[in-house]
C-alpha cells in the first residue's frame, strides 16, 4: 500500500499536512529553511507589517511547565515588509513553500504590505487579524466582522495568491467572524491564535510579562483549538478548507485536528525546542502508523472523520 501524506489546501498542495505556525522560528529565512528541511510541509513567517516594530519589552516569552505551554507578548516585532522581503526572496530561491503572515494596524496598512509582497511566488498570505499582544486601535480587527469582511474583500481583488484568515479564539461567536472572512473571499480559515492570558508573580506582586498581558499557546489550548475547528467544520463542511492550530505536541494531536475537520495543521510551540527536527520526525512516524493501522491511503480521508 502506498501512503500519501500530500495535502491539498484549496488550490495549494504541500507534501504533508504539517506547517510551521507563525511566530515560532520565523524571524529569518534560515530558521524557516531549516524547518522545511526538517520535514514540514510548509512554513509561515513571523507576522510582517508595514513598518519596523520593536515589539514589547522583555520578559516577552516564557514557558509554563505545569501545563506544557508558553505565554508570550512579543507584540508583532518585525523589521517591516521592505526589509523582510529579502528573506522571502531567499526562501523563494530555495523553493521553500512559504506562507507570509501579514498584519496591519488598519486596512491601508494591510493593503500596503500585500501590494509590497504580492509579486513573490509565495503559497499564500495568512492575514493575522488576531494577535492579542498589541493595543492597536482599541479592539482587535479579528473581533469585528464588518472590518474582517471589508479588509478581506479589498485584499481579495488585489492578488490571486490564496488568502488565509487566522481566527482569534477570543470572541463569543467564531462562526460570525469566519463567515465574514468567507464572504469577503478568503480561501482558507486557520484556527486558532493564542488565548488571552496572564501570569503574576506572587512574591513581587508583579505581572511577569513586560507588557503585563499576553497570549497562551501550547498543550493547554489544544482542546480549545479542537472545539473551534469542530464548530467551523460543522458550519462550513467542505465549503472552505480549515487549518487547525493550537497545542500540537504529538502525532496523535495532528490526527485529532484532522478528525475535527482540519485539512492541515500548524505547529508552533512544540517546535520551539532544542531539537525541532526530532519532533517533526516523531509527528511523521505517528501519522504513518495511524494511517497504516486504519488502512488509510491518503491523508485527506481523515479530515472530518469525527463528524460521520
Amino acid at each position, binding site marked *: 500500500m502506498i501512503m500519501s501524506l500530500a495535502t491539498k489546501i484549496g488550490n495549494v498542495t504541500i507534501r504533508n499536512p504539517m506547517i510551521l505556525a507563525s511566530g515560532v522560528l520565523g*524571524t529569518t529565512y534560515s*530558521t524557516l529553511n531549516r524547518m522545511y528541511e526538517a520535514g514540514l510541509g510548509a512554513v509561515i513567517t513571523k507576522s510582517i507589517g508595514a513598518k519596523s516594530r520593536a*515589539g514589547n519589552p*522583555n520578559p516577552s516569552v516564557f514557558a*509554563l511547565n505545569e501545563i506544557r505551554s508558553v505565554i508570550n507578548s*512579543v507584540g508583532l*516585532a518585525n*523589521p517591516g515588509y521592505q526589509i523582510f522581503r529579502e528573506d522571502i526572496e531567499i526562501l523563494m530561491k530555495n523553493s521553500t513553500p512559504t506562507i507570509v503572515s501579514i498584519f496591519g494596524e488598519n486596512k491601508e496598512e494591510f493593503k500596503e504590505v500585500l501590494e509590497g509582497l504580492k509579486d513573490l511566488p509565495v503559497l499564500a498570505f495568512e492575514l493575522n487579524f488576531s494577535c492579542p499582544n498589541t493595543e492597536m486601535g482599541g479592539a482587535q480587527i479579528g473581533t469585528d466582522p464588518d472590518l474582517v469582511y471589508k479588509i478581506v474583500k479589498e485584499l481579495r481583488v488585489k492578488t490571486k495568491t490564496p488568502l488565509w484568515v487566522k481566527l482569534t479564539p477570543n470572541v463569543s461567536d467564531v462562526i460570525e467572524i469566519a463567515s465574514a472572512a468567507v464572504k469577503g473571499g478568503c480561501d482558507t480559515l486557520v484556527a486558532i491564535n493564542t488565548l488571552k492570558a496572564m501570569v503574576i508573580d506572587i512574591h513581587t506582586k508583579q505581572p*511577569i510579562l513586560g507588557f503585563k498581558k499576553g497570549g497562551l499557546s501550547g498543550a493547554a489550548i489544544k482542546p480549545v483549538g479542537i472545539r473551534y475547528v469542530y464548530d467551523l467544520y460543522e458550519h462550513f463542511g467542505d465549503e472552505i478548507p480549515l487549518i487547525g492550530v493550537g497545542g500540537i505536541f504529538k502525532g496523535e494531536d495532528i490526527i485529532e485536528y484532522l478528525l475535527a475537520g482540519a485539512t492541515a495543521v500548524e505547529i508552533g510551540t512544540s517546535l520551539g525546542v532544542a531539537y525541532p527536527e526530532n519532533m517533526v520526525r516523531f509527528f511523521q512516524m505517528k501519522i504513518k502508523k495511524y494511517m497504516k493501522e486504519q488502512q488509510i491511503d491518503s491523508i485527506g480521508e481523515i479530515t472530518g472523520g469525527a463528524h460521520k
Partner: protein
Amino acid sequence: MIKQTLSNDKPVMSVIVEKWEECFETYCYKIKLPVKIQSAKPGQFIMLWVPREDEYPICIAGLKDSILEVGIAKMGPGTEAMHKKEVGDLVGIRGIYGKPFTPPEDVNHLLIGGGFGMTPLKLLTEVLVANENKQTIHVFEGARSKNRLMYYEWLQDFHDQGKINFHVCTDDGSLGYQGFPTIDLEKFLQESETSSVIYAAGPEKMMKVIFDIGKNYPKVVDMQMSLADRYMRCGFGACAYCAVDPTGWRICVDGPVFNTEKLEQISDFGVYKRLETGEKKRI
C-alpha cells in the same frame, strides 16, 4: 515541596545574598536559588528578570549548592536596573540554558576574553583548575584600563599559586602590558609545540579577530567561542531572534558556544547581529 532542579519555566524568584563591585561599572552577585541544584557547565546561561524592568541572558560565572554567581557590566537600562538591586532583593531566574564549553583532555587550554565575556571564562577556569589531569591553562584578559579588569584578583591569585598562567593587558598600559590580549596569545602560539584549544567570550568583533588568528596555527586543534551577546526573548529556541544565518542555528539552544567547524559556517559571526525588530545590523 521544594523543586529539585531549575527548569525551563517561568522565572523562579531568588534572593540576592551577596553583592560586590567587581570593577568599573560592573557588579557581581551571589543569588540563592530556592531549588536544589549542584552545578552548571561553563558557557551556559540563565535569563535574569529584574522585576518591572527587563529580562536578558546572563552567562553563569559560578553555581555551587544552589548559589548562583553572575557578573553584570553596565550595558543599558536593564543592567543599570540590576545594579540598583541590593542584598535581600528578589530577582527572577529561568534556565539553565545553552550548550557549554567542552574542553578536551591533553591540550593547552587558552582562555581569552574581555569585559562581560570574562564571566563564562571564570567558571571555565574553575572547572579546568579543578580537573586533576595535569594541563596547562593560560588566561588572557584585556581591558581599556586597570579599573575595568574583571576578576583580576581572583585570576592573579590562581596565577600566584601556579595553577594558571595569567596574561593581563590594558589599552592604556595602566596594568600588565599595553595592547590587546591577542599579542600574548600569538606569542604563546608561536612558541608552543603542543596542541591547544582556544576558548573565547566577549564582544563578537573581538572573537572574530581571535578566530582569524587561531586559524593560522595548525596547533590550534579547536576553538570554542560563546556568542551569547545577542538579543534574546525566550532563551529556549522558540522566538529565533538570536538565530544566525545561513544555518538557522539559534544561539540559545544550538549555542551559545560553537566550535571551529560550526563557526566557519556562520556567515553572521562577527559581522551581523539582530535587533529587537528582527532586522540585521552590522556589528
